[in-house]
């Protein structure tokens, strides 16, 4: 089975909770889940929705068209009715029926204009009711559910509370329609409102009331017949995480001791999760670690504080997105010059400038690899799934200390905000790199040697100097051309060392049959859509494989070339305009990446879009621009 549905409403009106509740219940039902959250750069009132997918097989993307749309308000109806598959079900409060459908002040002007045009062409009318009828004529099922009445009557809620409960109400109908039993829904509510007894009771009552109503309202049956989920076998322990959570958990396991940040979407939640879990206990209940989180006055300060921390030997990191990263560039250069192990978790979002602050994008790749004046070694590692993200958060700290370079963990809004179920992590290893203890001889922080990595001592242990200027082995300013050449080469030669030593699976991963003809190259959260499409395409006989690139700098040209040279045709799939990974590949390997499937509307790339674009490319198109999703 493969269920997709949207649940939407005004931002701040419980819509996020509704989505979480639905995902949680589905996961508790032992399904695989993947959910995208779309919201405006706004706190309350603008349209927001979750696109939730559940399946009994592994999934890592969302897919259109959807089976259900659950609408908390008219804007959701007006925005998402198009997303329904033939026979798909639209659920909304019956109380909305008489509402006008194009008088929606919060709605984006452009969307409203398109809506008006569509309704005019279809000769639809102006109320929700008329739209519903038109949809039914077009083969959709519309279920104006008497939520308000049912909640008042059965859950005995006073009417001002109804609006607050509507999210749980609609989620309940969607879940029941998908075949999730009430018990599981209530379990999910318990878990969601763990620390809020009152809210828990209220939501439990609403769920029960609506669930009873569900069994009574006749047409709800039509949902089940279309997307029934049977009982699925237990999957063992799993965790439900957004990418922000995955990073936080990884950093905490990996020994992070100082996290600095300045609030920015979609990065800030990571720091909040760390703060909330900053007491680390072992099974005996002993406090074994307690990292601190510092909210800096700006991103410049955040990176500089983290570097300062790293100099004292603590594992230090910061997180940000585009605008903040732009401000960190100078600090990162200092870390490069001074060979400081520091991790920057970089969540890409829609740019340039403030751009689309809450929307997805993969358009900062070239910036991440080449930011900063002058040349220095850095590592840029991009994760393609939530599980990988968690492990990479640990790896980044290891790489930073092992090679004494700044490491950019390159993520995106997709990973940050999408929610999925992962297996609890197994604890890997911690590599702290070359160290020197308190020594009697004269310590030189940047001592030349066969290895470009010099042994580290921490501030507090030895005499040492650091400077952003070119420096000698002790860390003192030097403008001598010969020392300059040697220090420059010391720093830059780390690139080769890293390329030599980092295991292949951290450079890139090939999915699918080795005997491919078409190679779809991708990265970041988009990997998930590519993999889901891969399954679908291979089932229909396409000779395609997916190559996920992970290490962006130093660029693993040699390793990639092995695959590129085998491909009859190479196509890139990414959420940006020019095809930044494609460019990196062409530049570094000399192979042409002729075909590019690109999306830059700020919305996730979906499984169906990848399948479709692949077909179009096989049909002769060179560049396919995707535009799906609201």
């Amino acid at each position: 089975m493969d269920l997709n549905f949207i649940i939407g409403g005004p931002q701040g009106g419980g819509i996020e909770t509704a989505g979480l509740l639905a995902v949680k219940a589905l996961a508790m039902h032992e399904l695989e889940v993947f959910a995208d959250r779309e919201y405006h750069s706004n706190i309350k009132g603008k349209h927001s929705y979750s696109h939730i997918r559940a399946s009994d097989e592994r999934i890592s993307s969302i897919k259109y068209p959807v089976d259900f749309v659950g609408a908390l308000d008219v804007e959701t109806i007006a925005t998402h009715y198009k997303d329904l598959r033939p026979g798909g079900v639209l659920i909304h409060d019956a109380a909305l029926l008489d509402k006008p459908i194009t008088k929606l002040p919060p709605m984006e002007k452009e969307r409203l204009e398109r809506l008006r045009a569509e309704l005019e062409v279809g000769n639809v009318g102006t109320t929700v009711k008329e739209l519903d009828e038109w949809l039914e004529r077009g083969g959709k099922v519309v279920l104006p559910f008497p939520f308000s009445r049912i909640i008042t009557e059965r859950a005995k809620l006073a009417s001002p509370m109804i609006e607050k409960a509507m999210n749980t109400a609609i989620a309940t109908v969607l879940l029941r329609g998908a075949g999730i039993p009430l018990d599981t829904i209530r379990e999910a509510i318990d878990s969601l409102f763990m620390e809020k007894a009152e809210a828990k009771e209220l939501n439990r009552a609403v769920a029960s009331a609506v669930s009873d109503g569900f069994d009574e309202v006749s047409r709800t049956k039509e949902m089940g017949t279309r997307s029934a989920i049977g009982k699925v076998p237990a999957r063992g322990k799993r965790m439900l995480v957004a990418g922000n959570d995955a990073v936080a958990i990884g950093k905490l396991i990996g020994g992070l001791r100082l996290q600095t940040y300045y609030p920015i979407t979609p990065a800030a939640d990571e720091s909040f999760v760390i703060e909330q879990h900053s007491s680390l206990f072992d099974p005996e209940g002993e406090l074994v670690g307690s990292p601190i989180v510092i909210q800096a006055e700006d991103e410049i300060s955040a990176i500089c504080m983290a570097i300062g921390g790293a100099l004292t030997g603590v594992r230090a990191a910061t997180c940000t997105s585009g605008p903040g990263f732009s401000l960190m560039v100078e600090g990162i250069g200092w870390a490069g010059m001074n060979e400081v192990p520091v991790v920057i978790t970089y969540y890409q979002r829609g740019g340039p400038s403030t751009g689309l602050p809450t929307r997805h994008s993969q358009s900062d790749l070239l910036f991440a690899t080449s930011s900063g004046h002058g040349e220095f070694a850095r590592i840029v590692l991009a994760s393609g799934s939530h599980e990988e993200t968690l492990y990479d958060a640990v790896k980044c700290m290891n790489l930073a200390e092992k090679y004494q370079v700044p490491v950019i963990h390159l993520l995106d809004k997709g990973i940050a905000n999408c929610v999925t179920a992962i297996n609890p992590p197994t604890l890997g290893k911690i590599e702290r790199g070359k160290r020197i203890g308190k020594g009697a001889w004269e310590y030189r922080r940047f001592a030349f040697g066969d290895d470009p990595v010099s042994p580290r001592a921490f501030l507090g242990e030895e005499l040492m100097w650091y400077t952003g200027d070119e420096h000698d082995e002790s860390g003192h300013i030097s403008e001598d051309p010969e020392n300059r050449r040697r220090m420059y080469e010391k720093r830059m030669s780390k690139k080769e060392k890293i390329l030599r030593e980092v295991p292949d699976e951290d450079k890139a991963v090939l999915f699918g049959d080795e005997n491919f003809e078409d190679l779809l190259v991708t990265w970041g959260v988009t990997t998930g859509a590519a993999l889901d499409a891969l399954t679908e395409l291979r089932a229909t006989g396409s000779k395609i494989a997916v190559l996920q690139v992970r290490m962006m700098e130093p660029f693993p040209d040699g390793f990639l070339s092995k695959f590129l040279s085998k491909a009859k045709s190479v196509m890139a799939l990414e959420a940006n305009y020019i095809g930044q990974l494609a460019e990196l590949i062409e530049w570094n390997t000399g192979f042409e990446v002729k075909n590019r499937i690109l999306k830059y509307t700020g919305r996730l790339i979906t499984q169906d879009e990848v399948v479709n674009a692949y077909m179009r490319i096989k049909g002769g198109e060179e560049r396919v621009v995707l535009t799906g999703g609201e």
Partner: protein
Amino acid sequence: MSSDWNSGVWPDWCPGCGNFGIFTALKGALSELGISREKMVLVSGIGCSGKIPHFVKVPGVHTLHGRAIPFATGIKVSNPDLKVIVHGGDGDLLGIGMGHLIAMGRRNPEILVVIHNNGVYGLTKGQASPTLQLGKKTKSLAFPNINSAVNPILLGIASGYTFLARSYAYNIEHLKACLKQGISHSGAGILEVIQPCPTWNNIVTMDWVEKNTYYLKDWDPVVKDDEDAVKKAQGIIGIEAGEKKALGIILTDRRKDPFGKRLASVYKRYATEPPAAQQVDKGGAPLSIDLEKTFHKFYIH
């Protein structure tokens, strides 16, 4: 002795530069404080002033223009055992780095910020710094300065610093005393040092300083209580409005918790085991964190 505190790197300031005075006083203060060498860190910005850590034989971190305070803060919060002193120019700390200076006042970490106030951007050849008075024209300016000057002491008050002092680069003894007191203070401190720059600033000469400064007497800088704090602030407004610049300790306020204490109030382990003292691994393996307990909220069942 003092020469023991020379790193061996040749100080490349101009002959007669006030930085030599600061250098001497600093070495004296460090040696007299009796803190072990590796437990100190001099953190500096970029400018003539910013070079000072290279010349002193204690660990030094010569950072970016304007960013010494964030670096220093990161060092201090991670390893509170270290004595952290910031050195920077007036352009560095009161121009590009002003935001951090104010933010540091809000945190009150045990860091002393020594402002080398020479009225100019020394290392970039004498442009007006934020402390140059309105209408003044030093040698290298094309026009008289069109910006008003800031006063670091008043900013220090407005942003919550708990130690404020002013001294003069060529009065080594006075400066050394101020440094010692500032370094020992448990909170955020600003020590403004009037630092003649004979190369670019032909206004603030030794002679000018002679005529335009005086040493504070009969001024008790120690804040007693909240009421006294207001009086002190008002008094300082008066002092700073005077024709001449006051030299001496201007404020010490021990009512406010230093940042370390504040951190300890929310991170239970901080006081005894700050980040730099914590383990992060057990022989290459992560610590045996109880995942299910720590991250229970993420577990599906």
